[in-house]
């Protein structure tokens, strides 16, 4: 039960982190004319954060 609450708290923290990472103002930092790995920076950033959040959720829950 204590472990489950800890997992829940980690997920809440992840929610807050994700919310901050893909909103103004941090999002505006990546709104630039630059291409990373052939992909426009903002596309790569948004999808990268998205994937990272999912990976972290999986890690928090399944470890």
């Amino acid at each position, binding site marked *: 039960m204590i472990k489950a609450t800890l997992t829940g708290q980690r*997920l809440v923290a992840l929610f807050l982190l994700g919310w901050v990472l*893909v909103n*103004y103002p941090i999002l*505006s930092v990546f709104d630039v004319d630059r*291409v990373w790995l052939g992909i*426009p920076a*903002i*596309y790569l950033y948004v999808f990268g954060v998205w994937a990272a959040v999912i990976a972290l959720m999986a890690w928090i829950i399944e470890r």
Partner: protein
Amino acid sequence: MLTGTTIGFASFLYLLLLFAVAYFGDKRADAGRSIIANPTIYALSLAVFCTTWTYYGSVGRAASSGLGFVPIFLGPTLVVALWWFVMLKMVRIGKANRITSIADFIASRYGKSHLLGGLVTVIAVLGVIPYIALQLKAVSSSFTILTFYPAIVMPAKVDSVPWLADTTLYIALIMAAFTILFGTRHLDATERHEGLVAAVAFESVVKLVIFMAVGLYVTFGIFDGFGDLFSRAAQHADLQGLMHMGAGGNGYGNWFALTLLSMLAVMFLPRQFQVAVVENVNENHLRRAIWLFPLYLLLINIFVLPIALGGQMLFAGQSVDADTFVLTLPMAHGHGWLALLVFIGGLSAASGMVIVETIALSTMVCNDLVMPLLLRYRWLALQGQEDLSGVLLGIRRGAIVLILLLGYLYFRLAGEAHALVSIGLISFAAVAQFAPAMLGGMYWRGGTRSGALAGLSGGFAVWLYTLLLPSFAKSGWLPGDFLQNGLWGFELLRPQELFGLQGLDPMANGLFWSLLANIGGYICVSLMRRPNAAEAGQATLFVDVFKQGGPSGGALWRGSAQVGDLLPLIGRIIGPERARSVFADYARSRGVASVDVLPADAGLVHFAEATLAGAIGSASARVMVASVVKEEPLGLDEVMNILDEASQVRAYSKRLEEKSLELEAATRELRGANDRLKELDRLKDDFMSSVTHELRTPLTSIRAFSEMLLEDPKIDLEDRKRFLGIIVSETERLTRLVNQVLDMAKIESGHAEWHNGEINLVEIIEQAVASTSQLFKDKGVALEMNLPASVPTLLADRDRLVQVMLNLLSNAVKFVERGKGRVAVTLAQTAEGMRVDVRDNGPGLTPEEQLIVFEKFRQGGNTMTDKPQGTGLGLPISRQIVEHYGGRLWVESAPGEGATFSFLMPCGKSAETPDEAG
């Protein structure tokens, strides 16, 4: 090549496959071997969130606003992280109270109110029917486009097809048939539909695989990978804007609003509630769904931007609707079969949504709209003994057909109008109105029925005015001047800039004002009075659902009832056979042999009501049960007393638990302390026996020689002298031993006297060496000294440190071989302090010996065979002395390689040692 018949036939085959999957799922469920009882299927069924609006519409949005489609999926991804708490609680409440829809959830929470349930149903139906129409439109237009293959023609006017020749109508009817067949098989107390969920999960796989196949084809077949596609898009001036925020009105404020909106939608859309809460088999499935569902959303969106940009480049200058790129890109490259698959994928996205949404809405319409009306007019009560389950199922089936036909009608009437295109988000905003009453009801006891009513109706009214009516006006169904000039010419009432709020786009504006009205109304009106008895009781059931030993629903009922009244009542709704079997199960769980001897108490009434609630909703169940039992209404005070009592019992048992935990901890500590005491006692005994043993050895020899001198006067002088010499030396040893024992005891107890002063370790070493030089000489041992010229002084007891050095030196001499021994003394300054090493080339010590030499009365060498050469207290005392000054004394050695005894005196620290001598 692809005629309407071919496509129709393919769709029909696909839907047939769907029937087969659902049939299989139901059969397996009946056999007790559920195929949906696993977390992956649960996560896939949640993906009913992705409708044709995702399948075709995301690309359309991306083509005009770049990343503008992302927040609709980012919101769910983020909010799912909170499901660990929120959705788990919702599922638990749903199971405990037999909740079957959002309307039922809200009605039940606020005192089983018919009015609230009805209001929620109306909002849900009005908000969602256009959304269903959107699905039908997507199916219809993709069908039309596909029939023109290989030419790419946009469907100009849908209503050019006569109604009865419209394939979409038949597809809608097949969907209705499917929903009726698998959604209303029987009136179940749990309202779960395993076959339907299996079919929805299957559809989720179909649409994902096909969409990704198209994405891969566009990215790697038409273009040469992501890099090629994006770099070519970057050369188009009009596409460059899509690679930034702000494209197509996609500003940060809008982005934030859409993220929030989709967070609420993914929890409160009727179909999401249906699959996530009502159809949940096991709440543990939530765990994996929390990351699998967002993963699905990510996968289905990876190729949206490539398809959108690719379509924009390839169809530049042609009038091809971006919403159709998924379909038209394969068509333009001559891949008719891929386009047909895309159509099937779109059909699966549409049918999954339509099926689950209609089943959820039909449950609401039946339980929260039609049933209350029937009850109000006493129609049910008058029908006597009739089995009503058929009537209820009929109402649901009628509702399903009606909802689908309404959706179809809306689609035919709205056509290409704005009211349909923008409806996805408007539907989201409608269901977002449920959030305050739902979330508030789960976490706040103070919410009341009037508060929820005020919040919902306020939010709904603002939604209607700021979002729905403007979309009607833009379609030309309403005069549009109130958009520009405000209602009755008041500019402050302009719906899309309500109260002069500018700078937000219409969606964000509407969401802000409607949620403000909603939350404000909910809180303010709730705070105007205390919750009444019914509200307080339900609030406890909802808010405290996780607390063990909380009051059950039965605790809040008083009156008298007859099994003979309740059983037929339940039988009328769910059928006499099923009623008898659930009552028999209940009797067994109460430990009663048969239904007839069941005590007709509050528990039974609660059970009957819950069973009914599963079939007809909590509010109607309350009314029906109340009609056959005699109830004494409980006042608020009584309810509060019962709840207080329950919470006191809970608090008491919690305190008891804490106390017993404390006791356990105390017992553990006591046991540990006792063990330590026993150990100390044993050590003391050991010490005493060692001391007495050590004392007896010299005493014995003193006594023996004294007796010889006493009894035999004839001993010659030479022997007398020798004997007396032995007696003297043994007495000295005895004195030394006694002194050391006293010394040890003093140091250990902290009563030793320490005469601290400035000392120089070089001087100490030299003094000790001088004192032992005779020993070295006698045994022929070479002594080597490595002392630095100058060292910092320490504050310590000079005599004690000399004692330590003497001890180490005499030990070294003792164990080296006569004539060949070498002893080296080294003094060095290290970071930790002054370090003294005394190294010898004696026999060395095994690791075990290294440990025991520091124990009292333990000596190096074999004590069994060798004559003891010391008291066995030297090293323990030396260690105590060094440790008193915060230093360390240790040995490093290996057998045969000599031993190095070292000690370390910290610099500066010794000054802090209190001078106990004063």
